[in-house]
């Protein structure tokens, strides 16, 4: 593997780890998933193609690893203990926003894992629908519907933001 690829992988590790946290919901599992994904990437490095970027290639590997080994990487609020989940990301409150980061993280983790991945890839990483579809190996229409469902579910889980917004408008 040439140095450019190695450098790209090293630079992508923090983002890869963050994606792993979004998928698994706790740092221990996130680090295990990241390590597994990196090991797989090293084994498959000969398959690397330059289109799409190294980070996207790693994200794709990670998502597959996550789905294939989901019993090892316990995700979601449904499966994790509430205390463990709440303490895991150690998020500070978002300032000057209508909701706390902890709340939005918890709402994200309550989503089904495929919706959660779509939401993360588009809303946090800024991938287009086409790119997200490639990363999750699904049709673009599936990305659209997963995103819409995810957003509606999060909206229902975070009603206080709407109340806050209404109060602010009354003022």
């Amino acid at each position, binding site marked *: *593997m040439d*140095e450019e690829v*190695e*450098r790209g*992988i*090293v630079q992508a*590790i*923090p*983002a890869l*780890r*963050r994606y792993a*946290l*979004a998928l698994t919901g706790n740092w221990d599992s996130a*680090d295990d998933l*990241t*390590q597994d994904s*990196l*090991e797989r*990437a*090293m084994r498959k490095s000969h398959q690397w193609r330059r289109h799409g970027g190294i980070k996207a290639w790693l994200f794709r590997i990670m998502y597959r690893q996550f789905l294939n080994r989901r019993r090892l990487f316990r995700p979601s609020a449904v499966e994790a203990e509430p205390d463990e989940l709440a303490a895991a*990301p150690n*998020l*500070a409150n*978002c300032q000057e*926003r*209508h*909701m706390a*980061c*902890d*709340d*939005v*993280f918890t709402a*994200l983790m309550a989503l089904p894992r495929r919706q959660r991945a779509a*939401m*993360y890839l*588009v*809303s*946090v990483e800024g991938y*287009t*629908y086409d790119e997200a579809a490639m990363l999750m190996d699904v049709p673009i229409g599936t990305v*659209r*519907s997963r*995103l*819409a*469902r995810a*957003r*509606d579910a*999060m*909206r229902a889980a*975070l009603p206080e*933001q*709407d109340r806050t*917004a209404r109060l602010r408008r009354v003022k």
Partner: protein
Amino acid sequence: MSRSTRNGLSPDALEASAYVDGVMDDDPARRAAFERRLADDPGLRERVAAYRRQGQALRQAFDLLLERPVPERLYHPLERGVLPARSRVLHPLAVAATVMLIGLGAGWMGASYIGNQASPAHAVLKDLRQGHIVADILSAEGRGTAPLASGIATAVPTARVQASGLTETERSMMTVGGRPALVIDYRTPQGQAVTLMVQRRPAHLADTRPILLREKGFSASVWTGDTTVYTLISPTGTGPDIAALTAHLRDGLSPETIPMPAPLTPDRPLASGLPGDGLAPGADAIPAVPGLGPMPGDVPAAGPPPEGRNL
């Protein structure tokens, strides 16, 4: 007003989601039609606003996470090939952190630091707990000699170090990172603590001028000789200026590996079986001691210099 649902999914949710994500930007007619609906439908406006707030909050929440230190183990899969640049930095940093922890034994660091530290110091804490003095070093006037591997030793010109104003307070052989290390504690004329560690140079550590490392609680500099790697470390705040001290010491401090001197030859064979490395004859030349293991792949190799701040 919310329109009818399709498979439990509101068409408004699909449209609003596409609008928020900029999917309509390439289709002005569709976008204009949606914005006309938006102007007439408070519920739809509320939905779009909620979606936007979700995105902002998610980005803000996850942006915080990029600042977290990455555990060293996540770089290990890459070390099987050519080492990535970051690992070349973290290796000496881990060594430096280990020496910092050794400094706990010398009394210049508070034990409370252990509970607060992050990687890489945390990564080597476990290793240090397993570390222990493995052998006495040969003390001679003006020289400190210690075994670094089978058949070879390092000779530190301690007289030159002391000529620069440092007073030796303690020296020991330890295993650090699974390798033998000569560790010498000094005090400056002002009573500040500083620790010097000398180890056999790992095969993957490239030639480097001194690199200054600053971690919470301590500063360190790391540089290499032909066959050895040196780490100088001091506590932040109460220690001496590590950069100035390194510059002062570097020329005079040039210990290198040497054939094992006769007085260090043990009177019994080495049980743990350190491999000979071709630098000097005489495998099984040092006492077998717990924790003193072989150094796999220990072949000097050149490579690009590690990242870091050169002094």
